[in-house]
């Protein structure tokens, strides 16, 4: 089954980089992109993605604040926060929001693990 995934990062290169890895793993998935939290919330309402990946360090609201906002809109959406800043506090806050933490740059194995878990969760909530 093909899903729609939202990629949020203020850096276009970072979005390109995730898109490339994602395309190698799930070529038939539909990608939606946003460059900041505000745009991401609008895309979630308009495009109804199944899964979202959020950069942590963005101007305006950061990825953790955005994750909390998205939780309020879509309580069951699988979320990942993506950052090179692998400090314990950030990883812990990510997990507190029920989101996965992925280190930047995102590598195929880590993304594959997240996507597999996300698909399992989507199937479980669908039934």
């Amino acid at each position: 089954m093909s899903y729609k995934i939202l990629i949020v990062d203020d850096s276009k290169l970072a979005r390109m980089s995730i898109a490339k890895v994602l395309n190698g793993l799930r070529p038939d998935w539909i990608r939606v992109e946003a460059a900041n939290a505000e745009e991401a919330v609008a895309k979630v309402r308009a495009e109804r993605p199944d899964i979202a990946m959020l950069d942590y360090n963005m101007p305006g609201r950061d990825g953790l604040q955005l994750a909390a906002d998205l939780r309020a809109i879509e309580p069951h959406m699988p979320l990942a926060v993506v950052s090179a800043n692998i400090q314990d506090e950030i990883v812990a806050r990510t997990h507190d929001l029920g989101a996965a933490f992925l280190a930047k740059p995102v590598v195929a194995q880590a993304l594959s693990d997240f996507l597999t878990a996300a698909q399992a969760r989507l199937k479980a909530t669908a039934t």
Partner: protein
Amino acid sequence: MTVAPAIDLDDLELDALSELVNIGVGRAAASLRVMVGEEILLSVPSVKVVSRVEAAGIIGGRDIGELVAVHQSFDGDISGRALLIFPETNSLELVRAVTGGELPLEDIIELEQEALAETGNIILNGCLATIANLLGRSLKMSLPEIVRGSGHDLFTLAGVSAAEDVALFLYIDFAVKQRDIRGFIAMLMDQPALVSLRRLLADLIDRTGDVHAGAL
């Protein structure tokens, strides 16, 4: 009067460079967090191509008085200088944080140079090594040096060539959450280094870009 044209990075090249710095400093902050045992807060990086005088002005304009910096040069496919800069008044507090806060003041003062150099080395090396890896190149780093003075002093160090009058200046603020420690990381590159960097960024963008056309 005509001004020599500066190398201008286009939007995607600046974006790619900011992202490299963001990843490099993010990793380095995680190392610093291990050293001080407290959360390190980072700003979103800012990247500009400016003259050295302007770069000094940006730092001077922040009104933080005398500065202390750990300075390292790097050399290889791209060369330049990286500085980890704090207000002079924060320097002992950083040493105290890194050494665990148990030492008497005189020991901290004695350890200051060494602790600053080592902290700078870990942060700057962590940051530059990550950037080099992402670009698929290797960089040679000099030993860390401690420099004190104004923003102007830091950017007019001995051995700076005239070509460095155009500099790539990028900075990212950091702060230790529970303590009064803040500073920033700056990187300076001259014109020829910028030309090389631009080529490496273009390669990186090419390598990354081949599936992007399909995104919404």
